[in-house]
């Protein structure tokens, strides 16, 4: 076992592009579920709305990248309005089913050959965000960073470095915005809705409007996550926006702690460090035949990782629903029966 490789890949996993995407998506879920009590199982739909809003306007209609980003944000808002108007009056489990269906409707529609002139069908849209690397102040092919302690490899090329800096800056801004939102009077109303909707209504708050605002803002974070995914890969693929993404983002949010600003970010980092760690350890164990081939092959490592995710999700909810930094009294799960 090469522990230096395992540890450096684990560290890289924690700050990877995936961690950034899931952190942003989970921040949105945290606003929905952690602060407002809305169980959104279709966050991936908002991600797809952002990514395709951006991809379609820039690629098919030739808009500049900044205009495409505006369009992606707008697509997220429109989706929130469409979804929220009829469903925010529903109970949590119904809302979950509607949002999960909405996410799947979007994926099936954009991957349909019928619309491939606009959406690229199952191939998606590629090569629309070259401008992003055009803004890169670093030399894309040059190496940056260093080895730490002699062996830990934390080097990135200029293109990746730029992507990571932009991504984590986005996460930082999103956390700042969230902090300002949830410490404001508006945020306190959201928490009161989470704790007791009828009580907030009795105090004269327009509960529906607050829930809608929460859905739109959280969906916007999802759209930003989707757009970052699209821009950093210079590509949008429909099957990258399938249902499990929402569940993994939710898992990340629960790991970190719902109802805390930093919870989803810490959760996403831990989630991807665990995935990278188990992936590397299992791959090496299989490669060096510590685990016999008859039990596991290297192609199955990915599957085992996801089983661990599922087991982890179950154990967390049973034994530590507040996650790493959450406050048990603040965790929204099951406040409203």
């Amino acid at each position: 076992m090469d522990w230096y490789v395992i540890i450096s890949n684990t560290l890289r996993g924690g700050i990877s592009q995936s961690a950034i995407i899931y952190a942003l998506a989970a921040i949105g879920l945290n606003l929905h579920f952690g602060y407002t009590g809305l169980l959104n199982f279709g966050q991936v739909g908002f991600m797809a709305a952002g990514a395709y809003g951006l991809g379609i306007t820039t690629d098919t209609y030739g808009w500049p990248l900044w205009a495409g980003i505006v369009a992606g944000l707008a697509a997220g808002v429109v989706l929130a309005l469409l979804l929220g108007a009829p469903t925010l009056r529903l109970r949590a489990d119904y809302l979950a089913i509607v949002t999960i269906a909405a996410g799947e409707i979007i994926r099936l529609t954009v991957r349909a050959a019928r619309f491939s002139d606009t959406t690229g069908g199952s191939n998606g849209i590629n090569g629309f965000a070259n401008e992003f690397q055009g803004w890169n102040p670093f030399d894309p092919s040059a190496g940056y960073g260093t080895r730490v302690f002699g062996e830990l490899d934390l080097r990135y090329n200029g293109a990746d470095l730029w992507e990571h800096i932009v991504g984590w800056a986005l996460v930082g801004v999103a956390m700042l915005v969230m902090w300002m939102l949830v410490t404001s009077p508006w945020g306190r109303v959201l928490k009161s809705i989470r704790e007791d909707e009828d009580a907030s209504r009795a105090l004269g708050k327009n509960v529906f409007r607050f829930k809608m605002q929460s859905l739109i803002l959280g969906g916007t974070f999802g759209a930003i996550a989707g757009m970052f995914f699209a821009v950093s890969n210079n590509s949008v693929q429909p099957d990258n926006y399938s249902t499990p993404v929402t569940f993994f983002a939710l898992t990340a949010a629960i790991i970190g702690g719902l109802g805390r600003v930093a919870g989803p970010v810490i959760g996403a980092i831990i989630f991807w460090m665990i995935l990278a760690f188990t992936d590397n350890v299992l791959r090496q164990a299989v490669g060096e035949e510590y685990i016999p081939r008859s039990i596991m092959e290297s192609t199955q490592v990915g599957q085992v990782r996801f089983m661990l995710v599922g087991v982890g999700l179950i154990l967390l909810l049973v034994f530590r629903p507040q996650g790493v930094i959450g406050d048990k009294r603040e965790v929204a799960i099951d406040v409203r029966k």
Partner: protein
Amino acid sequence: MAASPRVRRSLLALLVAVVVGLVSADAASAQGTGEGEGTQGVLQFRSDDPEVTERQPIEGGEVVVYAAELSPNGRSVVSRGEEVGRATSAADGTFSVDLPGPGDYAVELQLDTLPEGVEIVDEDRQTLPLRLTENQRRNVLFNLAEEDAAAAVRGREGDSRIDRGARLLVDGIKFGLIIGMCAIGLSLIYGTTGLVNFAHSEMITLGAVLGFFFNVTVGIQLIPAALLAMALGGLFSVGLDLGIWRPLRRRGVGLVSMMIISVGLAIVLRYLILYQFGERSRAYGDYAIQTDTLFEIGPVPFIPKDVVIIVISLVVLLAVTALLRLTKLGTAMRAVSDSPDLAASTGIDVDRTVTLVWLLGGVLVTLGGIFQGLSERVSWDMGFQLLLLVFASVTLGGLGTDFGVIVGSLVVGGFIYISTLAVPPELKNVGALLVLVVILMIRPQGIFGRRERIG
């Protein structure tokens, strides 16, 4: 679980990751960067012979690449310039063309070089656009088939809409009955415990895979194999209740937490099945291919397995509704649905009733999974693909009901198939999901559900 078949592993762990959307796009898209710009692909065709499911390679097919002007998004050819390269496919059907540099090209398949009887399915796709960036090699794909298979893909032309509608209705009813069998357990479990069980989809897959294990791996005929699978599926379902859900209820874990826990359980089961079964879809050893019709009603030919699926499903579903209405057990189930506390105070053993609901649901969903595997094929994600349709049926009929769910399933199944008269088949599930959303907007309790406060 450990009993499910250990079969040959599939090649691409990558594909798994793509399915769950975790890898970056350069792995996900069908393009790679290699030695200089170029294009490549495999010429292969779908056979008319129903026993031959693998596509057959074509040797000697010729592909010509022209410089071209493409539309701004690169997805259609505006005009074609001079030839820049050509290639002939090898014995395994592969071809590869090196191209002079990045830019726009049009790739044309020479139809006269194809073997006798093989044609291109979509005639507009004989010339494909190709846009290459530096060092990029992209795959191009021509959809080829023998005459009958091509006609089948194009949608049987020449048939009247009514004939097709009748056939689709029968297919839809069959599909609806299968969904109903899967949905009833979900609905009853919700009714008695309030749990929206997202892991129910994996019970569908598990049922089909258990059937496959007994039928193909062990080698028992499908009917006894199905009975064995149903017994095991029911036991597994009871095991889930006793091992996970009952302790959680005792701990006082709330319903929303339990719903998310069921998501976690679904993830575990799905990947456990994938781990054991592999990602290739497979057919059962018996009744998989039937081409002779048993009888015809009007324009609709019935093959034996479809008749069996429809008849058994109907009988089972009617028996279940009778059980719930006419027996003491059914009364107990409905009493627990109404109010567990009240039921307990009248002397009903609530825990035992709930466990029996899990048993019933587990047996039915296993049979549903086997029928779906018989109707289509067995694959690791078949349950997940059905899950939202099952939800749609349950919601339409009324969560917690029995008869309502059967009606809901038939409507959803029929709707999905009939809608293909108007929409492309790839969008048929979208229509059903839209219906789900619309129902929740206008009548969240479903057709037969009791009106209650849902806000």
